[in-house]
């Protein structure tokens, strides 16, 4: 069984990434929720990196969407990057790929977080 871990690292000043590794489901969705809630308010933009996320379920997606709503309410931004395989497929099936939430590369994700970008 794939394990699960989260890692936070700085990107450009004011921006950071939380990378998800392993399988994100009901058992660990709370960990991601807390990690995002714990991101210092000084960061105005967060990328949730899914390149090493091998599996995501609807609870994991719901946690990310709720966190994004909270970020938006605070005038901050949250996007998702680099989904592959099962993660990419479920985001497509649920219609979320077309939502301005998901970017293919970290560069695209960072560009979308900048104040001059839309949405």
């Amino acid at each position, binding site marked *: *069984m794939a394990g699960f871990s989260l890692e936070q690292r700085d990107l450009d000043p004011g921006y950071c990434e939380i990378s998800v590794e392993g*399988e994100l*489901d*009901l*058992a660990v*969705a*709370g960990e991601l*929720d807390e990690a995002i809630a714990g991101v210092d308010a000084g960061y105005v933009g967060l990328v949730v990196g899914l390149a090493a996320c091998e*599996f995501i*379920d*609807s*609870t994991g*997606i*719901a*946690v990310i*969407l*709720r966190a994004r709503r909270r970020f938006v309410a605070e005038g901050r931004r949250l996007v998702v990057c680099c989904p592959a*395989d*099962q993660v990419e*497929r*479920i985001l497509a*099936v*649920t219609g979320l790929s077309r939502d301005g939430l998901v970017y293919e590369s970290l560069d695209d994700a960072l560009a979308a977080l900048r104040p001059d970008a839309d949405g």
Partner: protein
Amino acid sequence: MEGSDVEIELPARPESVALAREAVSAEADRLGMAPRCLDDLRTVVTEAFTNAVRYAYEEDVEGRVAIAVSAGEDVLCLTIRDFGVGIFPRPERELPSLHMGLPIIGALSEEFHLTSRRGRGTELTVCMPMGEAS
């Protein structure tokens, strides 16, 4: 659940979800399911089992969830069953919900059958293709 090749029963706990996913996909892999279909199957097991864990039982009850897999030539059918309240309005506890569990299952399967009996539980049977073609 007659004629099923594999049957397992697990406690209705969050930690059981990964076990259910692994058990079902290992069996499907052994039966020769194509990789892309395996991914969809893993999603379907997870969504169905998660619903049973989140919604079937009152918070102070430790319920159980039964899984059965039965394979035909081109199709694999998966049954997930709980002995809880039946499909019912349930409050969200700590974790939010996407409200797309059944729709995801419908999108990834050929067909599914859901039976809900008030106070007696929910049974979901999902039929998935074994290979890319179908």
